């Protein structure tokens, strides 16, 4: 991995190009990840994160349940459970709008998997946990606010 980094640095030419590449995260390890939404996961704003999971124009839906605590004493471990009752749910993405990197996870379902996922996430500050659901070629969303007393992103 270090050799690769050197080569990239050598090949990059001017210092300006290098710093742009570093800022864009191009020099991090794991460059060869084929199936990873790099732009989405490295997006620092909510708009970029939502756009990266096709949630930009998502319609609010009452058929999505976002279960999370009202108050999280420890932002490092916030249990989140998303249940979509929308028929044909094929994808659920989880976004926390005040996190430094808002996009947290993106789940695709197939072969009988239901529109349900339960996990634990980090939250840097009090904010909404947003679920973006894809079903039948359309995007929907729902959210729940979680008050965080101690942030968990260590920033």
């Amino acid at each position, binding site marked *: *991995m270090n050799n690769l980094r050197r080569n990239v640095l050598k090949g990059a030419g001017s210092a300006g190009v290098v710093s742009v590449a570093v800022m864009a995260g191009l020099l*991090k*390890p*794991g460059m*060869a*990840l084929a*199936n*990873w*939404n790099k732009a989405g*996961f490295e997006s620092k704003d909510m708009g970029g994160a939502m756009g990266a999971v096709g949630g930009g124009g998502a319609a609010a839906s009452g058929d999505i349940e976002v279960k999370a605590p009202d108050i999280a004493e420890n932002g*490092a*471990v*916030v*249990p989140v*459970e998303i249940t979509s009752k929308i028929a044909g749910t094929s994808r659920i993405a989880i976004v*926390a709008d005040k*996190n*430094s*990197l*808002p*996009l*947290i*996870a*993106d*789940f*695709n*379902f*197939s*072969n*009988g*998997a*239901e529109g*349900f*996922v*339960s*996990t*634990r*996430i*980090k939250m840097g500050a009090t904010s909404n946990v947003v679920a973006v659901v894809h079903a039948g070629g359309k995007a929907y969303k729902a959210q729940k606010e979680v008050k965080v007393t101690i942030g*968990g*992103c*260590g*920033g």
Partner: protein
Amino acid sequence: MRIRAGMQGDVAEVKCLMNHVMETGLRKDAKTGAVVPAHHITNVTAKMNGKVVLDAQWGGGVSKNPYLAFRVKGAKVGDEFEVSWTDNKGATEGGKAKVA
């Protein structure tokens, strides 16, 4: 990885507990002040009897030692689930469980 699968009606619920530091790449070491490089799971795949049922991409925002649960309709006792992850450094780990 710890993995367990059980039936709830005609739906199997699979629960997994993975061991991983899940470093975001934003955290600073308390002593040195240096940024701790990103080191987190990027991809998680779950298969039931060899067929993919869940294909996920993760960032560093999933908590350390991740917990994941998902549900699959039409499963039955004896069906085998296999869950595996890959991280941004190329490490990988998996586990299997039969529906009990």
